[in-house]
């Protein structure tokens, strides 16, 4: 579905992400792990076609079902973004329009992609039911909902647009642990029911272990290890991956008392 080859993202000659090869097939979840400055978010922004507008230069190839996107026009990107490839950010409230009620924002976004009237309303209601949100939420403004609700709302929008690729950038990092568990369960269900492919970016290897099929570990802009989740998390071949794994505090280890 998505095929990335020899991707290089640079700002003023400084390479911030270099990804030789990254594939995402239908229904697959790939975890992108790394710490601050590892290049994981830069990789996602490139796949979403946003790097250039942020002042970066991008080279290599990013293909969606065989269509090369790297040279695509901004008009083409606007068709694809949201519609085919959607993004769920760390703080979804920040990406919603604070002056619009959620229902209006939802319908307006569908309208931008040519989905209007009864069809739009029906899709909105189905998508909300999919992510277990009440329709009463639609009359609220972004600041009137919780972080978990806003995150589910962002996912509902992707569902309504029938996006088949979801880029999730630390979608659970700002959430409480019980809410995080709900969002992870929701993403698993989306994959089962809709075959959505996901690039799941996180510094949290435990969440990636729970959710992803494959994992790519990045550090300082480079891919240092990749493979099936079971292999990488159980028998990491790179020292940094091992250090990342060892650093995760585990209940019952290193107890003081």
């Amino acid at each position, binding site marked *: 579905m998505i095929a990335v080859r020899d991707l290089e993202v640079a700002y003023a000659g400084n390479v911030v992400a270099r990804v030789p090869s990254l594939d995402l097939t239908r229904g697959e979840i790939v975890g992108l792990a790394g*710490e601050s400055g590892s290049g994981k978010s830069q990789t996602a922004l490139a796949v979403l076609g946003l790097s250039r507008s942020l002042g970066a230069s991008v080279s290599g190839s990013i293909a969606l079902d065989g269509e090369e996107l790297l040279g695509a026009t901004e008009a083409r990107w606007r068709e694809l973004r949201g519609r085919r490839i959607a993004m769920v950010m760390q703080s979804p409230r920040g990406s919603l329009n604070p002056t619009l009620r959620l229902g209006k924002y939802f319908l307006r976004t569908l309208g931008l992609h040519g989905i209007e009237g009864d069809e739009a309303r029906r899709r909105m209601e189905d998508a909300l039911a999919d992510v277990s949100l009440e329709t009463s939420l639609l009359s609220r403004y972004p600041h009137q909902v919780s972080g978990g609700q806003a995150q589910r709302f962002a996912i509902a929008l992707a569902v309504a647009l029938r996006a088949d690729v979801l880029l999730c950038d630390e979608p659970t990092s700002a959430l409480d642990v019980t809410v995080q568990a709900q969002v992870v369960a929701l993403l698993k269900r989306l994959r089962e029911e809709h075959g959505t492919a996901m690039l799941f970016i996180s510094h949290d290897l435990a*969440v990636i*272990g*729970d959710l992803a099929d494959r994992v790519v570990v990045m550090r300082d802009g480079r891919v240092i290890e990749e493979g099936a989740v079971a292999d990488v998390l159980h028998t990491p071949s790179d020292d940094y991956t091992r250090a990342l794994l060892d650093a995760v*505090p585990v209940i*019952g280890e290193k107890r*003081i*008392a």
Partner: protein
Amino acid sequence: MTAPLLTASAIDVRFRDVHAVQAVSFDVPEGPFGLGLIGESGSGKSTIARALLGLTPLAGGTIAFEGTDISTLRRGDMKAFRRAVQLVMQDGTEALDPRMKVGASVAEGIAAHALIPRGPRRAARVAELLEEVGLPAALADRYPHELSGGQRQRATIARALAVEPKILILDEPTSALDVTVQARILDLIRRLRAERSLSYLLISHNLAVVDQLCDACLVLKDGAVVEHGPTAQVLDRPRHPYTQQLRAAVPEIAVRS
């Protein structure tokens, strides 16, 4: 047995019609001792921290320091109390004045409490403190923005230790840090605890972090304590359904089959 360092007895905090903290009681004994305050957003954990520092008025109950109700402290004793209880916040960026060199920030408390006169002795003490928290003394001449997140958090800890406190209140001290950096800060707190016989109240939403550093812990929900006991008991054999739910929501590095 001497009186505990800090005692909260049935403390209540209200904000208009919100009962933010409800009848919360606990002791922090002489060190080395760590008490964990576990809770999700809105559980009241940071409000409790503010109340302990005397920054939020109580609607009921008392906070006692070495057996004396802090609301009865006179000016001079209040100053001694403020010296004895030091706060370390989530983000070192907020605690350090961006216009001040790190050394000057670390020395601020030393000056405010007139512990060491300005001059070479004070500079030497600042260098010692920076080294104690694992920073090169030369960082005293840098500004906060020139430091990494982990270095800033170490500097914040050095700043708190500068006045020789009896208790540290650590409010989500590692939540903004990358996981490998977090692991090193947790090691630092463990070392300081042993070397300085430190007592601390550690506020965190991360059960594993509390598990590593705390002898006992409280679990808060909607401002009330739902469970309180030795950490190993609370986390290994949680009795309250909410603690069980929190415990179950923590992803562990296990691999999907």
